[in-house]
């Protein structure tokens, strides 16, 4: 795996985030509400 991208702005909430987002694996799962999903996709899995 290459070096993490420490400069890229992140997913949906980059504008509100005070942090420099590490993009890492774009397929990494997060949970929101009752469901978990890959950011940027339909919240179904």
């Amino acid at each position, binding site marked *: 795996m290459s070096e993490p991208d420490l400069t890229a702005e992140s997913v949906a909430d980059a504008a509100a*985030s005070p942090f420099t987002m590490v993009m890492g694996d774009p397929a990494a799962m997060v*949970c929101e509400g009752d469901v978990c999903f890959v950011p940027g996709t339909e919240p179904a899995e």
Partner: protein
Amino acid sequence: MHMHPLHVLVTSPIKIDIWSDIACPWCYIGKRHLEAGLEALGADAPDVEIEYHSFELSPDTPLDFEGSTVEYLADRKGMPVERVEQMLEHVTGVAANAGLEYHFEKVAHTKTLKAHELLHFAKANGKQLELKERLLKAYFVEGGRVNRIDELVGFAEEVGLDGAAAREALESGRYADGVQADIAQAGAYGINGVPFFVIDGKYGISGAQPAEVFSQAISQVAGERAA
């Protein structure tokens, strides 16, 4: 020997702040990936200080949902049962790869606010990491009820906390404001999903990223400090 303040600054542990819930399968997996990332650094691993912050994924979860995870998601989200089962099978497989034995058929869906209050109590008493692990295991592996004070006190005692003090903290709700402050802080940071990791107050990592992402980000921070 007199220690220069700058020396203290340079050698202080790298802070890792983590927003997560207990009812969050990817939070437990992300926890394991972070631990593996730190382990992979071996002797080069810098000192880190990990602090968990509260996040309530689903505030309208009933206190006692009497039914399976499949029923919960199918009824609540209107998802076809077959699709829910496929989803849970996928998560279970990823968890197994991380060394976790999930049993969704046992999971007791519930509100997690009381468990978060106990995590704050544990933090105040130096046992937050131990309790976080215990609560996640209880929820995903054992089917434990993480909203009932009697059971929570039992988990507290298992990790070496004083049971009577834990009960008093839960019954008085002394840490409820602290829980809400964590949740509000997440909102101020634009954190909508968990797990969410903040390394050294600078770098944000969203989701259950692979171990390598954590080890590389932590190494980078250590390198920046040494520069």
